[in-house]
């Protein structure tokens, strides 16, 4: 039987040297930055906040709400939820549309007065074979409790979107190797963007526990 090898990850953060002081500039730069930058600002957030979930689950929303103090745009961007049906270009288009619609509805362009500019970044993820390797549900359940939280990020967020596997590595393995489709579906139904990594780990463990104790 094919084992599941847990892989942790480390993020290399790259600065693009581009920044926005107002929402118009933000929109224009979202149009031109590499797609890895869109990924960084909508996903790596989780890798940087293992324990704490901020007001919104992406950097654009938090910047609008906290630095520009435009709560309306913050709320609109905060609801943006990537899914397996969308690729990163879809997310980019959605971001642009939200900001464009928002700017069309107001007379002045909100910008930072006391806050900080938005600095565009992108990231490269280095996978690290931290292990362990597991071959059944019980081992998988035990491993989930102890692996580095970066492994949760790598197998859930990286797998789904940047590696274009559509589902998390966990769901694919549970479904295709262990033939536990029901559990795999439950994993996919978790609203991952609403948890910190540790919160997500707890949720995954809870679902595994229910299955193990069946």
């Amino acid at each position: 039987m094919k084992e599941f090898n847990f892989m942790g990850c480390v993020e290399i953060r790259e600065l693009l040297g581009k920044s926005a002081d107002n929402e118009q500039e933000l929109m224009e730069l979202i149009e031109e930055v590499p797609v890895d930058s869109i990924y960084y600002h909508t996903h790596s957030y989780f890798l940087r906040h293992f324990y704490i979930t901020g007001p919104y689950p992406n950097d654009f929303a938090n910047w609008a709400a906290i630095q520009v103090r435009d709560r309306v745009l913050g709320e609109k961007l905060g609801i943006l939820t990537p899914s397996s049906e969308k690729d990163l270009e879809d997310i980019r288009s959605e971001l642009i549309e939200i900001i464009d619609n928002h700017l069309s509805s107001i007379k002045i362009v909100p910008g930072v007065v006391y806050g900080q500019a938005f600095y565009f970044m992108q990231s490269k993820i280095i996978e690290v074979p931290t292990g362990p390797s597991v071959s059944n549900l019980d081992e998988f359940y035990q491993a989930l409790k102890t692996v580095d939280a970066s492994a949760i990020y790598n197998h859930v967020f990286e797998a789904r979107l940047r590696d274009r596997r559509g589902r998390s590595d966990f769901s694919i393995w549970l479904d295709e190797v262990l033939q536990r489709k029901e559990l795999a579906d439950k994993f996919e139904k978790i609203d991952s963007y609403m948890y910190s990594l540790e919160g997500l780990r707890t949720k995954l463990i809870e679902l595994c526990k229910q299955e193990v104790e069946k």
Partner: protein
Amino acid sequence: MSNKNNITLDSYREIAPKGTIDLAYCLAEHLKGKSILHVNSTKLGGGVAEMLLRLIPMFNDLGLKSRWEVIAGTPLFYQTTKSFHNALQGQAQAISKEMYDEYIKVNQQNIEKIPLEADLAVIHDPQPAGFILKKPKLAKWLWRCHIDISRPQRKVWNFLKSYVSKYDGAIFSLPSFAQKLDIPQFLIYPSIDPLSDKNRELSSEEINSVLNKYGIPQDKPIILQVSRFDRFKDPIGVIEAYKLAKKYNDCYLILAGGSATDDPEGLQVLNEVRQAADTDKDIFLLDLPPDANIEINALQRIATIILQKSTKEGFGLTVAEAMWKGKPVIGGAVGGIVVQIIYGQTGFTVNSVEGCANRIRFLLNNTEVVTELGKRAKEYARRNFLITRHLCDYLALIDYLLSK
């Protein structure tokens, strides 16, 4: 790795987040035997030397061949690089042609003396940036900038940029420090060492001895700011905020600053602070020597709330130090403080004296929030600002560059 305190990489296992040391060993697996050279301008004193003193043995423990070289300069060279430092941080500086020539000459002399063979070199700060002219063809070289260059004086930056743009990459400490460069620019936050005297656990005897030494009572909540007596750290604003809060909540204020004896402006600020404190017996002004690490550690551990009310700041690692002691921090919303304080989660960022006073009052009246924020602050610091995270960031970047 061993040093005078017998600290090894494995000593950090119980302190770093679960799995971090194993992650470092896994990351280093492909890098075993690779040679890494660090070059800076001083072996003793300053944050860079402190960091290298701990990081280099860690790299060697992991099987990399890491070495550290220090350049030798002339008084004019150091005067020049000090002026560079100030100019890059935005202060107007007059730098003569003779000074630029001295920079070039000293770099050339050092390049001839220092062996540069290594798979990868990290050149720290502007002083040895000129080493790039002798970069071996196959090696990868990084320029590590530890200073705030968000608003550099253009002439000096353009001079330095002619060297920096020849590197394989640059590393900055904050996103706002990034420049328009044609080379990749990476972000690595600085870190604190949880086993150093400034951050390690202290016994109650050690803490009491510091309290006795400075005559600090503990019968009221303590507000603390640790920083040089420097206008950008806003010590007067701290006193004003304390006075506003004290109208409603009794507390002590400790302002613990670095020695100001060699800094005329520092002495002037200290005198202004003394005047602002006036005859208030609940304010303690401590002019500490530069090596007062255990004293600072003890003060942070007995404080109820820690302030870093700066109006301009580089990274501001005193915030991470305070967070590591499990304290909520109220900090000015500038520089690296906003990266360290997650508003309402690990502390509060503020923009005014009034904002600072409000947050002091709120925390003094909500002790359960103080405990909760402090707990989160410690975990956030553990994950993001310890030297073990810094080590993993370096390993990942080295691996990435050497495998390109």
